[in-house]
């Protein structure tokens, strides 16, 4: 014979379990309905507009392994850091184009550029940039030289550059180009000279 209070307790516990189950089901539906898409493409800042400005982009060409200056007119914001970001994004758009002379993987992005006084620039690439980059000394050399030479040539005062991937230090870009140290801009400028056509 089961005592009455045990029966009551059991019924209460069952009801509580049932109630919690219904509540959990309701919460699950609510979460599913409000889930954010995995890739949030909503803009965080207004697009750059306004008057365009002439800049020189140093574009890598795989066919002959050279770095060639190309003039471009791009809208430039007033902030020094934002200008650096727009420069590199303009460069990246060339590489992501179908007729790119130096193909980068789909999804490659410049996450941000930080200019830290005195004379330090930090370029933060996304993971896709590095993970999909082709491996090889020259192809990685070209990418690094293109990024650094473009930013230093258009942004006076930069002496050294660090390249991060997803905000973290990484050993190499794709197995060869060293990303663990700061790049000396003057050394990269010398490399850019070596990479000019006819050198």
């Amino acid at each position, binding site marked *: 014979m089961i005592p009455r209070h045990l029966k009551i307790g059991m019924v209460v516990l069952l009801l509580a379990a049932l109630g919690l189950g219904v509540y959990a089901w309701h919460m699950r539906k609510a979460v599913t309905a409000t889930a954010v898409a995995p890739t949030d493409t909503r803009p965080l800042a207004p697009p750059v507009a306004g008057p365009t400005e002439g800049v020189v982009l140093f574009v890598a060409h795989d066919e002959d392994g050279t770095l060639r200056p190309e003039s471009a007119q791009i809208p430039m914001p007033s902030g020094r850091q934002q200008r650096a970001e727009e420069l590199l994004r303009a460069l990246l758009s060339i590489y992501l184009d179908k007729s790119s002379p130096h193909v980068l993987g789909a999804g490659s992005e410049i996450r941000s550029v930080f200019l830290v006084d005195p004379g330090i620039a930090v370029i933060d690439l996304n993971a896709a940039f590095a993970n999909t980059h082709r491996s090889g*000394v020259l192809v990685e050399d070209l990418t690094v030289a293109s990024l650094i030479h473009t930013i230093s040539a258009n942004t006076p005062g930069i002496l050294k550059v660090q390249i991060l991937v997803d905000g973290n230090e990484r050993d190499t870009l794709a197995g060869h180009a060293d990303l663990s140290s700061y790049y000396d801009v003057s050394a990269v400028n010398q490399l850019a000279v070596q990479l000019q056509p006819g050198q």
Partner: protein
Amino acid sequence: MPWTKKIQSGENAGGLLVEAVSRSRVAAVAVVLLILVWALWLPGAPSEKHLSVYSTVANYSLPLVQREGRDYVGLLELFEPLGKVSAKSDSQRWRLRYNNVQADFQPGKTHAQVQGRDADLGGKFLLENGRGLVPVGSLGALMPRVLGGPVAVHEESDRVFIGGVATHFTASLTGDPARLVLHFTAPVNPSVATEPGALRMTFAHEPLVAPASPTLTFGSKTIPSAIYSESNGMAILTVNALIPVMATFGNDGRTITVSPAAPPVSAPPNPASQNIPPGATPATSAQPTQAAPAAPAAASAGRRYFAIVDASHGGDDHGETLSTTLLEKDVTVALARSLRQELESRGITTLVLRDSDANLSVDQRAVFANADHAAIYIALHAASSGHGVRVYTSMLPIGDNDRGPFRSWSTAQHSSLQLSQSTASLVAGEIQKRQIPVRDLSAPLRPLNNVIGPAIAVEVAPQGSDVSQLTAPDYEQLITSAVATAIAAARDQLGGAP
């Protein structure tokens, strides 16, 4: 309500508390014991077992699974690399089709039907998630019927030889001091490990088979014997030696010479002499070209090898995937061997840092080069993009300033950069003489920054778009002979390098 009465009684409540405490202690002790048992068991846990299959089509390795105390292998995986294979299954039967041969298996049965004929499996056929598994012991009976040719199964060591693919070897002792020369009927590339009193060569990918007797005795005081053994899909040759020995590869991997590890030049002991990296095969004093002029004596003080050739990447680091069947790490090893041969033929003592598929970090590579005080460090790379050869020197990063006698690791190359650049120019010039497109560049490429002495990297790309040229012996030789000629020309200049 007996339980409420117990709690109301102070004595009984105390008893319950003591009981609860003792239970928790027992539980804690049990957990500790479990952890101890786990910790003791873990190191002894058997490593994953593999079946190695050697054939004229492909050499490959398959994982084995343990069922009912026996080793089982998946039939689809077994036959897939050898030909066209498919399988169909229903609840009663699993049917395998290999080319035009059909085999029927029934789960739980110890016999199968191959082309309508009965085959004894020696154990139950198992069907797991549509995957047909047979005991390894059944392969000796099953595979010849399916493949229609001779198959030798080494069940104890999980090795299968399809057709006449076996690699044989002979061993002979020559010279004074004694050297053990091993001749193989096909090129081999074992991983080499040394331990006190022995040098062990593990042949993971080669169909090496035992000599007439697994124990070879040589009657030498320094290298008395060698023992051949097989296990877990591999062949192992252990050379017993009473002195430190090293292995040298020659004849395109068909000859391995095990010789005393005494330094070829009189030099004070240095860390490099005790620290041959895994997979490294140094040149020995027994090289036939030893009579050629050597580096200046003053320059060679404290140095065992004039040149260190580094086959970049290796192990888990494949480098660039040059094609579906060609990895950069394999091309660099072939180039390194070729370059060593070319350098040695010019009388330049050479150490190849990686002569097997070993993992070696860039820091380790720099440490070996620095500890040896090599006159020149040459890293080899291969690429599918671009044409011809690129010769690189270090593009030094911004590093910490040197402190007194201590040099910054990231800019250790600084004092030798000029000599590296002039050597790179010489190498590029020599390659250009051979009508191969060449460029002389700087690159942020480790470990060039970390090597104290002169250091260059050579990246080889095909002349056209066909990456298979990277494995063509004449193209390899054309490039490595040019590099070696340039290094030999710069010998006097490099001899005085730090």
